[in-house]
């Protein structure tokens, strides 16, 4: 049996601000993980990553991260990616800070 492909999202950091961003289905970069495009096919995931790497004038360090479907959109699998959706645990800085202000 061939190994099943774990779904992915394309993630990176914003070139100017450094903030964590995700590639959406319509080719935008969102700051919200749940707006990312969930890539369930390996070949397509690789293509989307290639496209992201072509956005070098806006983003830095693009890579594929494991994700899973959730009620509001894709959710992170690994704790590292979960931290990246929020910010550090010692201060309410980063995305969680912005989330608290809306």
């Amino acid at each position, binding site marked *: 049996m061939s190994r099943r492909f774990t779904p992915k999202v394309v993630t990176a950091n914003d070139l*100017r601000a450094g903030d964590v961003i995700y590639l959406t289905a319509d080719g935008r970069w969102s700051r919200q993980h749940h707006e990312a495009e969930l890539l369930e096919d390996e070949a397509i995931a690789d293509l989307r990553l290639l496209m992201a790497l072509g956005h070098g004038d806006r983003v830095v360090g693009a890579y594929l991260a494991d994700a899973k479907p959730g009620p509001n959109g894709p959710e992170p699998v*690994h704790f590292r990616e979960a931290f990246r959706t929020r910010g550090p645990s010692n201060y309410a800085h980063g995305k969680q800070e912005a989330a608290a202000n809306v």
Partner: protein
Amino acid sequence: MYNYSDFDEAFVRARVAQFRGQVERRLDGSLSEEEFRPLRLMNGLYLQLHAYMLRVAIPYGTLRSDQMRQLAMIADRWDKGYGHFTTRQNIQFNWPKLTDVPDILGALADVQMHAIQTSGNCIRNVTADHFAGAAADEVADPRPVAELIRQWSTDHAEFQFLPRKFKIAITGAAADRAVIRAHDIGLQIVREGDQIGYRVLVGGGLGRTPLIGQVIRAFLPKADLLPYLEAIVATYNLLGRRDNKYKARIKITVFENGIEAFRAATEAEFARIRPEFTGVDQDILAGIEAQFAPPAFRNTDPAPFAAALAVDPLLRAWAERSLAPHKRDNHAIVTVSLKAHGATPGDATSDQMRVLADLADRYGYGELRISHEQNVILPHVAKADLPNVHAELLRAGLATANVGLLSDIIACPGMDYCALATARSIPVAQGLATHFKAIGLEDEIGKLKIKISGCINACGHHHVGHIGILGLDRAGVENYQITLGGDGSEQAAIGERAGPGFAYDEVIPAIERLLRAYLALRQSRGESFIDAYRRLGPAPFKAALYPQEARDAA
């Protein structure tokens, strides 16, 4: 204190202008990230998990009050109102925007600071004993030599592309407060008769393969230092491995070739190049030494301090932990803890930085130091002023009396910030500090060094913690390995792994079992954890960490 020469000033300004151009070219797309990355790293700019991070060098841990105020200004204007002091005597800003970094570097240059050589395979920021120039036990102030090494190594053509990064630490005292035995080169200033010289150690380092440095020269005359260092680095450049990043540090070169062979090669190279050093370096050193002349110490009567101690128990508790002997009887060295229980080790808010700068101006001849243990030091305070200093620290929330105790933890940024991390370290440190405060055992336990790293790179020095904690990723879950018996002092030792790792929630209970066992086993209050561990060996401590296994084996 050391002031930039015109050369330094022009050099730093040129680098800022150069970097401004590089950032512009990155933003307009003419530089790719592959091209830009090494350039930003050369200027101390990293990309972490949530943002960029700017690492600013604090050479030999010495800061002037105006520099501290400028760091506070930068924190307010371009970051989130705080900075993180690290084990490498740097300050890191965790939230700068790429577009602001050239301005930040300009603001640093305004106070003779920079972020050069805080990254890359070059000779890094030279670290020194944080009590340098003040300690009662020092043979000589190590900072002039640290500055000489900085000048010699900055942009030294031969040493910009070493096999790997290269770290030098120096102390002027036999008591090792600079962890010189865990550095690529460690230097200790020693006296032989009426001659000043250096004890030279080589091949120490932490990270993936922790090793304690070995003595390559027991006594090196003062004038031979630069040629000898150059010979060591040249030998390393020749013998060091570039094929494998994990084998590229000098510690591996020394280990694989053996200290005798490495010494022989170094001594041969030294003999060859020594005649090229005509003494110009010693003239430069004399000039630098003059700039590090001690301040004009005030001659005040320490009696008011003794009187205040007798009536103020808070002052007494703080003084017992925070003061170290100064070379002048009527002065003391004050360590200001950045480890309030529950706070992030090493973080200071901009307000705290300003309070410290003001205290330095009013009571400390304008001088500050940053320790590798992530605290701030007022190196010269007249004893008569200590009650005032304490009162002002209290008001600023900076009078935590825990220096050298359990909660005086070194913790690296770990997975809260660092892109290389395998687990978090900061919340483990916060949790330990608040837990042991809550159960009231911290003072009872006494002297203890806990050090935490969020991955095998060991930026938190966990190998040399009496208790070391290493955060790992085990199948997608944070897991913490505990090492015991490490020591970063002149009795340096690498800690031993105690056994299987602990889940995030199990770490604090495990450390509590370990320390309750220590309290039961120690001969007296005077026997610290590390002393008891040395006397008894690991067995009883492992039994406390793993009670189930101990029962099963019974």
